[in-house]
């Protein structure tokens, strides 16, 4: 058994932003971490703040809540889009100031919200079926949901669905495919998540990480 605190992070951009933020907060040493093809990477400098080493588990975005919920990783970094979709039973003690994104309904250019509301049964293509189902149920509108795993825009472009529900960062992909945002239904954020049954030593290390991320002078929760 390792005594390191395990942080599950999605590979790619979120990992880099997370490491930058941890370094800026003094949790780890600054300097690039190049994991190569390794999936478990020890990061230098964490002992001083956390009281134990820090190990990164490099995962696919959608797998992060699973590892944290079942305690394989004590903490993780994950977007609320993924969290809400997985319904993972984890804590969310810190919100990062990067990675925020709109989650929106988009359709072919010129389509209005009233057009979509007027359809007796609206067909929506999305990766986020649970989130979309909750939102449309809240509005009392019946929808057929089509689960897609990528290039969701194509669903609306090729007529598989009347509209899509997807993350929108700059909106450039939508414009290039002759789509546009019809309605913003939420805002996603990137959260530090934690297992709910941590032992006291693990919890203390996570608490120190949250305090460091909140920054000096900011009262951590």
């Amino acid at each position, binding site marked *: *058994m390792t005594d390191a605190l395990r942080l599950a992070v999605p590979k790619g951009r979120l990992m880099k932003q997370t490491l930058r933020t941890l370094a800026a907060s003094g949790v780890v040493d600054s300097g690039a971490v190049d994991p190569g093809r390794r999936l478990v990477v020890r990061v230098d400098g964490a002992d001083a703040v956390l009281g134990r080493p820090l190990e990164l588990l490099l995962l696919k975005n959608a797998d992060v809540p*699973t590892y944290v*919920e*079942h*305690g*394989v990783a004590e903490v993780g970094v994950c977007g609320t889009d993924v969290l809400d979709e997985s*319904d993972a*039973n*984890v*804590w*969310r*003690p*810190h*919100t990062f100031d990067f990675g925020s994104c709109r989650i929106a309904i988009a359709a072919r250019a010129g389509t209005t919200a009233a057009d979509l509301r007027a359809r007796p049964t609206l067909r929506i293509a999305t990766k986020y079926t649970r989130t979309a189902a909750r939102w449309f149920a809240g509005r009392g509108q019946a929808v057929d949901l089509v689960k897609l795993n990528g290039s969701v825009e194509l669903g609306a472009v090729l007529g598989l669905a009347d509209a899509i529900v997807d993350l929108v960062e700059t909106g450039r992909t939508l414009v290039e495919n002759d789509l546009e945002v019809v309605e913003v239904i939420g805002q996603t*954020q990137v*959260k530090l998540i*934690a*297992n709910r*049954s*941590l*032992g*006291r*030593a*693990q*919890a*203390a290390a*996570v*608490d120190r990480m*949250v305090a460091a991320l909140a920054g000096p002078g900011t*009262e*951590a*929760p």
Partner: protein
Amino acid sequence: MTLDVPSTSARVRRRRELVTRALDVLRGWGYDEADVPLLAPWGELGEAIGERVASRLFRFADHTGRLQVLRGDITPVIAWQVVRSLESRALPVRVAYANRVARVERAFASQRLETYAVGMELIGAPGASADLEVITVALDLVDALGIHGHELHLGDVRIARGVIDAIAPSADAAARLQTALERRDAAVVAELSADAGPELRAAAVALCRVAPDATLFDRLEALDLPDVAAACAALRARFAELGRLVPDVPVVLDPTTFDDRGYYTGFRFRLVHPRMGEALGAGGRYDSLFGRLGRALPATGIGVYIERVVALAAALTPDDDAAPAAQFDASGVDPTEAVARARAARRNGQRVVVAHAAADGGDR
């Protein structure tokens, strides 16, 4: 933590052994095993079962059209049984149980529908001594199951509830704030309590601490919320008492505790192990459940998630019953002789396996 899952037969055997040991410990403390029915009438129990739990249970109409509920949460069923038999019992009533239960629970890939519950209920005993008895028995039980390195986490559902009620202007707002606090989502809690006074808001945000310390209790007790202050004081008192009673078990205070069953009214406790991602057991005081069933009685109890204990026990104490079995070949000319030799070996305490002819080549 990473635990290897024990093989099915080893897991079943180990569970049976652990359940027997657990019931022995409970019997030693005066808790006799109840015969918990598999089915109970929903019409009589529905009021007692919280909405959150009810949505995870299996209900169906029986052959007469009466709605029945399959055993899924044992505490309300035992309460229902005890209320019906109180005239013949002296208080307090001590009850143990060990049963398979059916309810929908989150699992890795989908949902788990069956699990195994072992626990106890102390009915008709109010106050600290009853809580301390239940905790002590639970710790004895876990010791007897070969678990070490566990912690006791204590909370009280009245603390976070009191803070929520002081902040939220409506039931809907209270539900959203509770969800945010259950997630320890400090940013959302801060947003939802923006209109509260600064001390109250700061206390609500502080309830999101992953590792709360004494300063959080000071802050909560300083609020003008007498029920919250009383619950904090009681929790601190239990902490001190347990420090004397079970000095070898680390005790952790966690004021951000909720009623996830729909009947807990105060003090709550969980058994946590740093190698497990889930609690090994959980329980608490439920003083209003019996009132809903027609007879007001204070009660407290705890349930142990035996499947998790089995997984952890297997990791902490590797199975020593892995000695290879002696093989006796009954596929040859004299199968009776092979079985007779196996029987003789069994009488000497050996594990045996009789090898028979393969199905496609068998002649009998």
